[in-house]
């Protein structure tokens, strides 16, 4: 049958001793080692990038959670703040912040003198130590507590952005030389105030609760409205995407006949999952705002857009979860005379629930971090008013969202906003971390092996 029985010409490798490694094999093994190293380097590069990313954000952003404040004794001159003399907030409201500014300035100068600190700065330059926002703060405090008028009270006010930056290392004497907003003399004064324990740095609750502030007041900017807006949108997404996603998955997985329409829907869903998010923004703008006339910047529109975006994720996760419930469970229910619908709702769905919830949380996390579509539906607007509660129509009030707030901060020129943007990202990442940990916990806690 075969005539080629002659030995194939061969190199020394096989014939010699197995113990002695020949050159060719040594070369191959060196190549093997190199290849293996490339792989390790690739994995480590990936992890290194993650570390770099997180360190860069943390170093830039952690300081946003600390804020410099100055304690001032202010004499709330009754003649100026309550010209009518009736302590009625409605009348007192006619005094604008311009009426309060001199009081605060005089209070600061008085405080400095009282502490025995000497400075040759003019009143204006001294007043620049504190944030413009603090005047508005003082005014709303007085309007809320009219009784304090006429008294001298200690108030804790925000230091200006540059002073705050000085104690965080962002501003130095050298940069102050070149900066028209701050002078080295002012920094020295701030140091003296710190030595006298009138200037302090503490945890910055305002950053989490306060609304955004104007471009010249980075020290006052907070995330309150953005967090609330994001929360509202997540509420909408949860209320819509979960039931719709589960209903669609049940139909496709349990009831849908194998035909062209089902195929079309399935291809559609997997494609929708890969459509760029900004396209959903265009959809939201065209359909929900221009066509249906819903208001711009409203959490309801953001929620609807994000719902459509996360639906494919939830459907894919839910179907996988339904698929993992073994057919024997369905057969058992059908076998004792339950209808198909009963077997699904009574047996399959509860068993698939942990998987569905995990998928939903991951979808929500994705939605929470999404920025691009929200830019197009007006969530970039500058919003200082907190939206009303959801049952008071708050879903239709203007609001922003956390990731969009980050984008907003980056568009402002004052370098102090880089710190705010990074700080906002830390808040965002903490939320995402909590959501993902919940998902992992659910998976671990309820995971079933069939």
């Amino acid at each position, binding site marked *: 049958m075969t005539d080629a029985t002659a030995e194939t010409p061969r190199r020394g490798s096989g014939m010699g001793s197995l113990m002695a490694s020949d050159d060719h094999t040594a070369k191959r093994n060196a190549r093997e080692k190199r290849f293996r190293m490339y792989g390790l380097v690739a994995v480590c590069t990936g992890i290194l990038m993650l570390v770099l990313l997180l360190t860069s954000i943390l170093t830039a952003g952690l300081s946003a959670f600390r804020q410099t404040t100055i304690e001032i004794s202010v004499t709330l001159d009754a003649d100026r703040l309550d010209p009518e003399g009736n302590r009625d907030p409605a009348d007192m409201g006619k005094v604008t912040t311009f009426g309060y500014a001199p009081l605060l300035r005089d209070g600061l100068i008085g405080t400095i003198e009282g502490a025995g600190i000497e400075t040759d700065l003019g009143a204006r330059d001294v007043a620049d130590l504190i944030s413009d926002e603090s005047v508005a703060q003082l005014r709303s405090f007085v309007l809320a507590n009219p009784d304090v008028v006429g008294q001298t009270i200690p108030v804790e006010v925000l230091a200006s952005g540059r002073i705050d930056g000085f104690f965080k290392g962002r501003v130095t004497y050298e940069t102050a030389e070149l900066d028209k907003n701050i002078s080295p003399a002012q920094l020295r004064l701030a140091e003296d105030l710190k030595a006298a324990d009138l200037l302090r740095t503490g945890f910055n609750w305002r950053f989490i609760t306060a609304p955004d502030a104007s471009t010249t007041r980075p020290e006052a900017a907070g995330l309150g409205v953005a967090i609330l807006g994001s929360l509202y949108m997540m509420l909408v997404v949860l209320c819509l995407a979960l039931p719709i996603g589960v209903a669609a998955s049940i139909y496709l997985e349990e009831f849908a006949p194998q035909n062209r329409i089902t195929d079309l829907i399935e291809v559609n869903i997997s494609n929708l999952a890969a459509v760029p998010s900004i396209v959903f923004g265009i959809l939201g703008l065209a359909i929900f705002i221009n066509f249906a006339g819903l208001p711009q910047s409203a959490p309801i529109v953001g929620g609807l857009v994000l719902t459509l975006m996360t639906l494919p994720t939830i459907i894919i996760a839910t179907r996988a979860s339904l698929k993992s419930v073994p057919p024997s469970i369905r057969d058992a229910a059908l076998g004792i005379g339950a209808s198909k619908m009963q077997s699904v709702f009574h047996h399959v769905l509860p068993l698939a629930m942990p998987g569905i919830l995990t998928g939903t949380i991951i979808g929500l996390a994705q939605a929470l971090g999404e920025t691009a579509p929200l830019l197009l539906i007006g969530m970039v607007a500058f919003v200082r008013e907190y939206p009303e509660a959801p049952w008071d129509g708050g879903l239709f009030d203007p609001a922003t969202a956390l990731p969009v707030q980050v*984008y907003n901060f980056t568009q402002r020129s004052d370098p102090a906003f880089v710190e705010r943007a990074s700080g906002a990202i830390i808040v965002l990442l903490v939320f995402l971390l909590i959501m993902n940990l919940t998902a992992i916990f659910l998976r671990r806690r309820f995971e079933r092996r069939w």
Partner: protein
Amino acid sequence: MPVIWMLAIIAILAGAGIVLGRKKALASAGGDSRLLHSLPGYYGANVALFVAAPALLVLAAWMVLQPILIESRVAATVPEDAYETQGDLSLILADVRRVARGLDLAVEQGTITAERAGDMRSEFTDVRQRLAEVGVAVGTEVDRTTLTAAQRYRVLEGRADLAMNVVVLLLAIGGFGLMYAKTDKDFRARNSVEAAIMVILIGASTIAILTTLGIVLSMLFETMNFFRQYPALEFFFSTTWDPSFSGRGGSSELGILPLLWGTLYISLIALLVAVPIGLFSAIYLSEYAGKKFRGFAKPLLEVLAGIPTIVYGLFALITVGPLLRDAIASPLGLGTSASSVMTAGLVMGIMLIPFVSSLSDDIINAVPQAMRDGSYGLGATQSETIRQVIIPAALPGIVGAILLAASRAIGETMIVVLGAGAAARIDANPFEAMTTVTVKIVSQLTGDTDFSSPETLVAFALGLTLFVITLGLNVLALYIVRKYREQYE
């Protein structure tokens, strides 16, 4: 009657349906639930479903359609000489809505009577002043056209609201009556409920199709509008992007080529970063790494995929951009801009690493063990097996994964908005700032938008182009991956 009241009434009727349907069914069986065709609960649920579902559906549809219909009818009453372009008309209509809203408020607060609101004349009354009193600010003086239209708007709206309430209530009551009458011990309530639930399930699964349809239609119409005002040939083949907002069209040059160039250049760099790193990571993790290392490194890499793109954008803006500029671009005289194709490409590449690696990991794991055994059995080293057997076998799947990653890169927005710059140019120097399709969609659709000018409408044409490109890539990639998986199943 506010919508909330309608909802409350529907809820009450549905609640009554649950109780009464159940009661009647039990009564018809003489209190013995065993004689019923279905469980008693189904009879109640059946009545409730037929009360709520049609009524709510019609309510929702009505609320979406009503403003559109009313607006078009009001628009028809605005004399044609009052406006020049569609844009003017939409401005007028916005004023009309505002005035109508103000009149509503005024009547509600009692500052004017309902009759007065209906026959008020702009010649005799300072409408603007009246509206300001109730807290509605109108930009200009309210002229006769606007006021008449607003009054017409209110009349129509009043009629439509009334009609809606009547129709919805009738539907709810009708549903109640019909099903309550049908309720009887032999009525197949469970089948009826299940059929209704099935309709709801099917409805939910068509939302995916409706979404796609909505995407395509919304962009298609505005794109056609755009091409009516701006030649399509120039859009697709002009190499200049220079919108001018002052000139109202005409002087704008809106060529997509520089944007496409920036998009593709950045995506290319991103893939050059992500594909080798992602692929080698996948190979190492699936073929070499021990259980412990894999258990530690794989989730870490996947964390990269869970980080929102805005975070990568900020990373590009504050870290990578300045670093590249100071370390490479400036010393070599290649550019002075922190935002550049390189910055955006590198950062986007990092974002895509886990995307490529986890897809490739799945695909490599799908190559049957027999293939590896065959190669090892011949004395191949692991790397020879991977390079010469596994990768060729997995190639279609890996190509699919890369195409999906490319589609991601092309559609990515926040990283390029913050990292690539806004200057539209065609240049080979990767350290120059360039811009992409997505950046321009954002910049044309945020801030002041005028949906009649080509400078705004071009965003829809850009969006459609983007959608078509990414859809093509996705369909192709999913097809390849699917075929690949079938091969080894």
